[in-house]
């Protein structure tokens, strides 16, 4: 049960990463690699702030602002300095590695016994808990701290998802989506396409840093290596989400992405339980994303061949 609960909490936290990447990869169509750096940026800023006794919500806000600034710089590298998309992201990611080390002062900061955003929820949950400080969830006893982590990530995730949906349906959000879908059309309608990319990347990486901030609080440490491969995880989650929800209404796409991330975490938890070597996790994820990317083409070719077969048979 605690495995499932953990996968859910982790999934909710990482769904913020997926939502951020949904904006860059799917809405403004920008292959943004800097994600691996900004998620660590969010985590390291949070770790330093919490160790210094800053209010956890203040630390979260600071992390989001730093992530947004990093995203905007990636965008400016691409639009103003005319550096290729991928290269802008790679430059940002590489630079952030050193920045993160500078911020933390060392490669790893453990967060033990510091107040986190789930602290408030612990008090709430404690009221529900029995004498053994456990909550009865569908028959299973669950520690208060686990329940609080789940509740806090759920509240933040749902609030962010709702805000994001609202934003994408405003005039500004519509402009952002149009800039990604058809830049020529967006410009012809008077939209500053470059500004849209910069602000889209700022929003995207702000969400990614939020995810990093919550991740550090949830797992109790920040590590300079923790961002490696996060981009592929996010992409895998988005792909699963798209398979779950085949629709292009904004609300459903956002729901699909959140559900996709949770499902992805559950699959990973199960695979690890069955004895998958954690070292192989990234390889397995990469193969999964590869298959998801080539499957539609392969299926199309196969169908074509089968249809041709039918025609030949008729001849």
């Amino acid at each position: 049960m605690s495995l499932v609960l953990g996968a859910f909490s982790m999934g909710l936290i990482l769904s913020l990463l997926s939502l951020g990447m949904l904006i860059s990869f799917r809405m403004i169509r920008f292959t943004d690699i800097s994600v691996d750096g900004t998620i660590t940026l969010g985590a390291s800023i949070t770790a330093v702030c919490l160790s210094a006794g800053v209010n956890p919500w203040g630390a979260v806000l600071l992390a989001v602002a730093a992530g947004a600034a990093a995203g905007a710089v990636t965008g400016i590298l691409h639009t103003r300095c005319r550096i290729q998309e991928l290269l802008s992201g790679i430059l940002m990611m590489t630079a952030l590695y050193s920045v993160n080390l500078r911020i933390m002062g060392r490669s790893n900061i453990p967060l033990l016994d510091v107040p986190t955003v789930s602290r408030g929820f612990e008090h709430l949950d404690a009221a529900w808990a029995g004498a053994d400080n456990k909550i009865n969830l569908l028959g299973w006893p669950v520690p208060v701290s686990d329940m609080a982590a789940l509740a806090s990530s759920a509240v933040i995730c749902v609030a962010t998802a709702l805000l994001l949906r609202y934003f994408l349906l405003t005039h500004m959000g519509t402009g952002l989506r149009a800039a990604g879908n058809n830049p020529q059309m967006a410009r012809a309608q008077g939209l500053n396409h470059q500004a849209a990319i910069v602000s889209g990347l700022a929003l995207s990486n702000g969400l990614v840093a939020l995810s990093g901030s919550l991740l550090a609080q949830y797992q109790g440490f920040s590590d300079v290596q923790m961002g490696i491969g996060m981009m592929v995880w996010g992409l895998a989650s988005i792909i699963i989400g798209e398979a779950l929800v085949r629709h292009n209404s904004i609300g459903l796409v956002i729901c699909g992405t959140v559900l996709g991330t949770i499902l992805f975490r559950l699959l990973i938890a199960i695979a690890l339980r069955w004895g998958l070597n954690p070292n192989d996790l990234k390889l397995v994820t990469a193969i999964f994303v590869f298959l998801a990317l080539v499957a539609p083409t392969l299926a199309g070719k196969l169908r074509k061949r089968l249809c041709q077969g039918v025609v030949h048979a008729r001849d």
Partner: protein
Amino acid sequence: MLEIKNIHKTFFPGTVNEVKALQGVDFTLEDGVFTAIIGTNGSGKSTVLNAVAGTFEPDAGTILLDGRDITHWPEFRRAAFIGRVFQNPFAGTAAEMSIAENIVMAMRRGKRRGLGPALGRRTLDEIADRVRELKMGLEDRLHNPIGTLSGGQRQALTLLMATWLRPKVLLLDEHTAALDPKSAAKVAELTSEIIAREKLAALMVTHSMQQAVTMPDRILMMHRGRVVEDYRDEMKRRVRIPDLIEAFNRVTKRELFTEPAAAMLERQYL
């Protein structure tokens, strides 16, 4: 009033692919005048339109809109005053967004895009009313992705979007060329109707002599990056397709004569 003054543009200068696209284009488009630009392939028709739209900056010359110098304005800034319909029916709309979302983009052309909801009930009603006027039955499909529509329907919507807020100039770049004959006729009819009703200044590039003779108030003929003929007022009313073809022939013949002459002079004096 759009004034184009001595515009020059060379693409890929100094390379084997060098193209002298515009070599001193000079004309004025008065308010409420619908002008067609005709000419051979590579004569610079579309390049003139793109220069006005701001796709590139000209090498020399100025473009004035109502007396304001817009030569160095970026494309998106000019869009506040300029409506555009492209040759490719898929270029003017965002395929994955709904009809309503595409139109609401046009309703904010040149205005601030804030944090208010884009599609309120009143906005949707307004959109439905104007889409109904197209008589294409699209008012019931406002929430469908625009990519599910035919080229003709998309081009009609692009035209509606380009003129939703009255533009100072409407640019039409062979906007019926990629459509089937029936849709092309429908879009052409719609174009004339909107331009007449709104008394718009419009520049239309076309390959169809028929359109050039019947639709606009004025015809400019281009060749080799210059305006070579200008039919307006009484002259335009009298011009027929054979006259235009004759003018084409005259222009190309003149060139056959001048090219070798230039080569001859070069040989003798250089």
